[in-house]
């Protein structure tokens, strides 16, 4: 049956008997009950996974109800661990939750489904319940320092993480560094190259880390918290070693991981400024420091990456940038409509359920095709999303670009 899954159980690692489980339940029971008792389910049709699987186990409602059921002794983490794989952490459910929308400010409450999913995945790992491919991904990340984005057999790692920068004459360290995420650094080097060229053109001085490891985000997202800490602590140390104060992130996943998780680990985190490359480059274009003069004759629409749009409310800057590119015809789909869109790549869903990611991306591209109007290109601003979107784009006859690739081209660079 369908629920016989890739979960595998090994002997529990760490944690005293049930201590973490008790902590998770204590921390999340009220919030879970807040969802359980209202039962609005407004989150459901906006959820990219639910839109495909139509399975109530994969709903934010279930993710909260399970906590209530575990507290009552009706379900155990063994029963539900695999259900929690079905989430891209896109954040649509949180935006759509009436509990948050209409009483959040007053009660200082937000339904935090993503945090619940993270907590339950971490609990599963602590109990020795692993998803086979996530475990492998975590082990290789831990071994190499960077994620195995090139496949299980092709080593990544800090010795190669700067390969994309060959010929760009970027120093090591310095007050500002560019933090290129694993996926782009190894799989889509045109993105960090484009960002680097644009920053140089805009007069921003920056370096690269002496040894950049994975930001740790996917480790937090899939429950391998210890490895996440190892990655983050290494990066923090590296920044301090080179006197770095400002970190520019082209990848929304890196950005949100660093601003959400690093402060938990580091009391002195306030000394760092974390900058989203998209904001910075929009500003450089606005201020005339980057001139876009090469026309790009494409009809594009924009994919709002979930972590930008749904999790951080960043949707204006990319539109401003696209409208500044000469020759470009921009057919926009508003960012609220896009609450229910996703690439399916988030939180390593593609590692464990590649067919689900592919279907979510296929549907995203079908939305592009429905636009008509000669749209030939989908632009995203998230390298992780671009992997499945590009694949789906091939089938749909739509080219997929990263926004920085187009901006660099418009600024006269070849990436």
């Amino acid at each position: 049956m369908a629920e016989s899954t890739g979960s595998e159980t090994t002997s529990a690692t760490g944690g005293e008997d049930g201590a973490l489980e008790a902590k998770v339940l204590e921390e999340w029971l009220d919030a879970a009950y807040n969802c359980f008792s209202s039962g609005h389910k407004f989150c459901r049709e906006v959820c990219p996974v639910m839109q495909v699987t139509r399975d109530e186990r994969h709903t934010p409602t279930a993710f909260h109800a399970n906590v209530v059921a575990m507290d009552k002794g009706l379900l155990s983490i063994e029963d539900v661990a695999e259900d929690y794989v079905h989430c891209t952490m896109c954040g649509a459910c949180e935006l759509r939750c009436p509990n948050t929308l209409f009483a959040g400010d007053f009660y200082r409450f937000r339904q935090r489904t993503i945090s619940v999913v993270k907590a339950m995945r971490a609990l599963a790992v602590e109990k020795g319940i692993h998803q086979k491919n996530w475990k492998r991904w975590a082990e290789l990340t831990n071994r190499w320092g960077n994620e195995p984005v090139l496949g299980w057999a092709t080593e990544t790692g800090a010795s190669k993480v700067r390969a994309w920068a060959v010929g760009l004459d970027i120093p090591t360290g310095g007050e500002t560094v560019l933090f290129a995420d694993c996926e782009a650094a190894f799989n889509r080097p045109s993105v960090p190259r484009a960002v680097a060229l644009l920053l140089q053109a805009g007069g921003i001085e920056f370096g690269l880390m002496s040894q950049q490891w994975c930001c740790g985000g996917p480790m937090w997202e899939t429950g391998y918290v210890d490895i996440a800490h190892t990655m983050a602590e290494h990066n923090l140390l590296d920044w301090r070693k080179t006197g770095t104060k400002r970190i520019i992130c082209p990848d929304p996943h890196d950005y949100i991981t660093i601003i959400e998780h690093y402060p938990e680990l580091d009391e002195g985190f306030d000394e760092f400024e974390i900058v989203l490359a998209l904001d910075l480059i929009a500003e450089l274009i606005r201020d005339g420091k980057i001139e876009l003069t090469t026309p790009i004759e494409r009809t594009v629409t924009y994919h709002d990456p979930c972590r930008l749009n749904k999790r951080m409310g960043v949707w204006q800057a990319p539109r401003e940038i696209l409208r500044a590119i000469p020759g470009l015809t921009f057919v926009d789909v508003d960012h609220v409509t896009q609450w229910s869109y996703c690439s399916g790549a988030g939180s390593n869903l593609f590692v464990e359920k590649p067919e689900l990611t592919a279907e979510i991306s296929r549907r995203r591209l079908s939305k592009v095709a429905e636009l008509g109007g000669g749209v030939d290109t989908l632009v995203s601003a998230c390298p992780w999303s671009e992997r499945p979107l590009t694949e789906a784009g091939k089938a749909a006859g739509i080219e997929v670009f990263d926004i920085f690739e187009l901006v660099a081209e418009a600024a006269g660079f070849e990436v």
Partner: protein
Amino acid sequence: MAIATLDAAVVDELIAICGEEHVFTGRSALFNRARVPAPFPAHRWAEHIPQAVVLPTSAEQISEVVKLANRRGIPVVPRAGATGLTDGAVPLRHGILVDVKLMNRILEIDHEDRTVTVQPGINMLKLNEELRPHGYIYPDDPASYPCSLVGGRIGTNGWSLIGGRYGHTRDLVISFEIVLPTGEIIQVGDGGGRKTRKSSSGYQLKHLFMGHQGTLGIVTEATLELVPRPEAEFSAFFAYPSYLDGWKATGDFARSGLATLAGVVLFDEQKVRYLRRDDEAYIPQPDWVQTVVAVAMYGQGDEVRAGARQLMRISRANGSHYLGDEISQGDWAARHDRYATPQHGRTRNGQVALMSWHCEDAAIPYSKLPEVRERWHRIVDGLRERFDAFDDWGMFAYTNGAYKPWGDYLTEIDIGIWESKWDDEMWATWVDAKREIARVAIEAGGSISACHGSCREGEVDLVPMELGGGFEVMKKIKRVLDPDNIMNPGKYLLDQAYEIDADMTSREEE
């Protein structure tokens, strides 16, 4: 907690019918399909779980599952969105739960005859996203608009917030295909034509197979009305110093005869007080505002503009105070989200307690609204005195007629329940209160339920009283269509339909 497992051979047969990937027996699959929104006796959760879940993809699969259930004597429980407020989708007797969510395709948009044919698992908001480029809407607009599904709307005989102009679910569903409790697949509508809106041919079976809470079959396809997307919307909120002032104004608006008037909503004094518990709703309103009325009009620009002018003239004549464009447009736009909020729950001494929302939803004649309101609030006061775990969240009254918003009103009282306090005594007290609330509705010449259905504990006891001889007919129909009581047993007192058999058998034995 042990779950009585189905015979492995039955599970094998389900897999043979629906495919391995669409049959589930794992604990989380079962526990997460036991519930509908509140109130739910959470302390009795384990009593209400199915033994297997199937997600079929065709009418034929559902038919085969139902036939299998008949052969084996296993209950079948249909489940669409599971957003209902009675317990239609709750498996009271365990069995096989047929979840139709995977059947969510649009099968045909007919531009000439203005219909859309869909599978039962599609949601109205999603459907309207697809209809938008064509210039249509499907105007079935319940509070659960973003999450309920067409199949469940038919099973509950739903009500729409804008039904005063566009009609309710029964008016908007032209015909449908249904798997009967014995597995046959039939088409019901007005007469035989799938797209015929009005027929005098034969019995009018469409109504029979709507609102039965899954006791008479499982809808597998439906042909729905398409309406031109309205050019204009006019919404207005008015304030009053007392409930009776608001009630009178509601009647004025609803009886105005303005064809674009889609709905009138009356918020009573307790409801306004409840909304003042958060910082965004009515706190900016001065203290004299005790009651609020909302109206909404839809249609072509020319007709809505003219209608709105007339409506504003009526409002000036009857002493309504317009609350301004921001509330009028903003609160109306947010109508689906302004459901109810667990954190608004308050104990008697005003402490916040996370409470679930429960709504009793009678249909009440306009003339009886003030009387029913007083009696219902007294019932809830009584509950609150007995257990400091109930809270009165006020009342709404919504126009309830189709195409003509006067006459009777969907009248709801919202009650906060601190569910984590549930025990058998509190539950029994609650059930008694529900029965009394239902009795008041019947005594006022109304109906126990305008839109949720009336098959939960408490209220269901009075269904025979409300329907009179009609309930006897219901039982006969149930027995004929579902001879072995397979289809969603335990609902609507319909087990009584089979007690005749038991009586007969015992007499024969004597």
